[in-house]
């Protein structure tokens, strides 16, 4: 009798497990097919309603103004306002790609796999979402709010030079002051999470901690530079004959 109940229980457990792991066929391929049909439908309607842009024939002697990059690269072009091309066009995107690849090796928090769990991984979520949002924000500003000579226009404004783009004189902060400020920024950035005894910082070994903080400090340097430029009219933090930042 007892044996029978045990066997029945086991069978029930197995059935439950199968129910939670249903067969892929036919449900999933059907969903995928429907998904493909919907996407194809949307694409065709889109293509019927809206023609792909085609400008005049390429003329190397006639500069296009503004010459905008495709929208997915326009974030980088927008950052060009704040940094020199070597940084905004080459070094920063390289750091972003390497930083993205490094995420799984830096985030050792085992929680929140396979679920939308914000509270178990607040630090990772907040910082990733801020970075993602900044990317989207730069794209939107560059795509919709930049006119000739990369001047700022609200989307509803006409692209004319009606005077609200007065020449702003930018200045460079003297190198010594900047280096001290950047050093303070780095030291505070490194020390603060440990001092505040944030949970994620406690669980990280020194290598991971150093890389994580370095990447984050570089990421947040972008909005810092935007504020310095827009509000305080700072052009360069560090200006040398060889390299400007």
């Amino acid at each position, binding site marked *: 009798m007892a044996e029978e109940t045990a066997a029945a229980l086991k069978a029930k457990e197995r059935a439950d497990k199968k129910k939670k792991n*249903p067969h892929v066929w036919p449900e999933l391929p059907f969903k995928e097919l429907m*998904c493909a049909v919907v996407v194809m439908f949307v694409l065709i309607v889109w*293509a019927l309603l809206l*023609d792909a842009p085609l400008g005049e024939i390429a003329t190397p002697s006639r500069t296009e103004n503004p010459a905008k990059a495709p929208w997915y*690269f326009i974030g980088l072009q927008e950052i060009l306002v704040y940094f020199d091309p070597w940084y905004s066009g*080459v070094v920063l995107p390289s750091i972003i790609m390497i930083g993205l690849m490094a995420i799984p090796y830096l985030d050792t928090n085992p929680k929140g*796999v*396979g*679920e939308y769990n914000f509270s178990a991984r607040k630090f990772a*979520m907040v910082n990733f979402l801020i970075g993602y949002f900044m990317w989207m924000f730069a794209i939107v500003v560059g795509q919709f709010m930049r006119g000739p000579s990369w001047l700022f226009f609200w989307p509803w404004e006409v692209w004319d030079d009606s005077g609200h783009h007065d020449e702003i004189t930018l200045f460079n902060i003297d190198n010594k002051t900047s280096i001290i400020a950047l050093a303070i920024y780095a030291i505070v950035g490194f020390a603060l999470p440990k001092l505040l005894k944030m949970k994620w910082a406690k669980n990280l070994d020194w290598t991971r901690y150093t890389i994580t903080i370095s990447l984050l400090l570089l990421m947040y340097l972008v909005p810092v530079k935007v504020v310095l430029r827009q509000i305080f009219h700072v052009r360069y933090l560090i200006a040398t004959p060889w390299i400007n930042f």
Partner: protein
Amino acid sequence: MTLKEKIMASQIWKSIFRHDFEDTPSNRGKVIRSNVFLHLHPLRIPEHAMKIRFTWCMGGITFFAFLVECITGILLMFYYHPVIEYAYMDMKYLQFDVPFGQILRNVHRWGAHLMVFTVMLHMLRVFLTGSYKRPREFNWVIGVVLLTLTLLMSFTGYLLPWDQLAYWAITVGTNMGAATPFIGVEGPFAIVDKFNDVRFVLLGGTTVGANALLRFYVAHVIAIPAIVFVGCAIHFWRIRKDGGISRPL
């Protein structure tokens, strides 16, 4: 015996479809296992992984958009010459002369935008569900590479219409290459001149011209898509090998 039964009992039919169609657990497995495309899937999958609200289907849509780009791209290749004398004229030819030419080009163009957009959302979803964590670390890395390649694929295609939009966007973009530290002519600490720096490699010259068009064409239609295909194969295979689709522990 009806004709249908006769056909389905024939040696030819049985050599192609190696299972019956009765809805039994064993046949459900065989359908997936005996089909090269369907066997990307496991036989069984956790219930939550089939829900659109979990996956957003963004990876799938990205791959589908890539297939659409391949097919419309091959069709467009029949009407396009990657030389500056013809490239722009071919656009006009597609627009006004080729049957369904305009809509073919439209689908290709908007499909590319869609692919870039969905691959970005796919990355967001994978992050939000923590699906990059051990043991899936390396598949995330491959994903980041595929995201970069998607952007490059779209960027190289941008030059091909040879209009003002294309010309100046690529000029702006490749001038960034010249700003690379050490190996770009205008970059800091340059150790190269303008005839052997990064931009020269990208353009086959110092400015966007005939060589640049040919280089971007080759990169766009074969070099990058070939790498993307291999990358996708590894990416999909590793989903299965690195513990299947992510699930709550």
